[in-house]
């Protein structure tokens, strides 16, 4: 989905709040959230693709203003409710207040029927796909052309696995894009490497 989470290249954001070697956690509840979602994954209640997608499905204002671990918490709660483990009513009764959850999911999709094997050096274009459900193609590479650097091991296909749709595992390609191809005359010079699923790619003749 073309959601609020798809931030790469979006303008208007301010300075990075950087301090060297900052801590990963600040409060005890953050560690608990991190453990609880990992625990639910370990129990097989949901997988990482479902987890990521439930974050993406958060109401955009909530997504943008929540901290990282509040986003994590919202995904965890949403999936526990969607999987029938808990109800929202129980959560709100226990929390003594509203417990905002993510919005329902759109349908998923399986692998592209036209997948091709690529070799290092091949020129590839990212398909002009608009996917209503989960997709791991950042919007900034859609329709853009790059060069294959390497092939990864096969991975579960996230567009399917976030939606319990049947699919085959497939490789991702490390595709190298020039920042000037991604944002012509409007980016610092750099090579941007993205791990692109085979289903998202087509060969450039």
């Amino acid at each position: 989905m073309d959601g609020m989470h798809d931030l790469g290249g979006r303008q208007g954001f301010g300075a990075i709040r950087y301090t060297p070697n900052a801590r990963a956690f600040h409060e005890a509840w953050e560690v608990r959230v991190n453990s609880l979602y990992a625990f639910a994954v370990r129990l097989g209640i949901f997988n990482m693709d479902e987890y990521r997608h439930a974050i993406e499905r958060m109401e955009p204002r909530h997504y943008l203003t929540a901290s990282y671990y509040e986003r994590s918490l919202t995904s965890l709660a949403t999936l526990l409710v969607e999987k029938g483990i808990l109800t929202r009513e129980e959560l709100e009764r226990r929390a003594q207040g509203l417990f905002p959850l993510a919005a329902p999911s759109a349908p998923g999709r399986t692998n592209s029927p036209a997948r091709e094997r690529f070799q290092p050096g091949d020129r590839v274009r990212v398909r002009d796909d608009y996917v209503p459900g989960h997709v791991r193609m950042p919007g900034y590479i859609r329709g853009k052309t790059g060069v294959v650097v390497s092939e990864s091991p096969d991975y579960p296909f996230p567009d399917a696995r976030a939606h319990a749709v049947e699919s085959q595992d497939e490789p991702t390609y490390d595709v190298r894009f020039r920042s000037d191809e991604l944002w012509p005359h409007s980016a610092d010079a750099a090579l941007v490497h993205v791990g692109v699923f085979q289903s998202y790619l087509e060969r450039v003749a």
Partner: protein
Amino acid sequence: MPDHTPVIKRTAPVERRVDAIQQALDERGLKATEAVEELRELAEEQWIPQNGARVVARAWVDPAFRERLLANGRAAVAELGLSMPKHHRHLVVLENRPTVQNVICCTQCSCTAFTIIGLPPDWYKDLEYRARVVRESRTVLKEMGLDLAPQVEIRVWDTTADTRYMVLPVQPPETIGWPEEKLAGIVTRDGMIGVAPL
């Protein structure tokens, strides 16, 4: 018959929301609180940047290990007793050179090789870094204190799949000949993300 349920209007504080889930899972016999303690120990004491620092130090002193690390990161870190989650099927180690600076990010969420380089800090997960570093890499690095010479090429790696990345920094010349343990002491998580010099 009037409904006497009190109207709940405000969002519960985040900590009470976490409590609600943890208690509900515990009452269902899922032993969430036990798991939280066990996973807290992993997150706070096992998945720490010192792991990656050991890897970097070994690569600096052992050219054969360095080659194995660049060829197959997952297998090489296992030699040092370090493991990665099953779904991280691939660890790509990015070798900095005097004219090449590699930088890791995750524009869509906040993925990292957390068992090796440690769980990421706020700034890595913040919207600012995620939005800007792919498009304004040199500007962002400079803001963060890494002012690269113009001839240094920047390579940004967006973690969009379950391949994980780790930057292998250039060994500072003044540390040549140091013992491996002492070398590990100078390697930082931010250096392995690629945003800070050593």
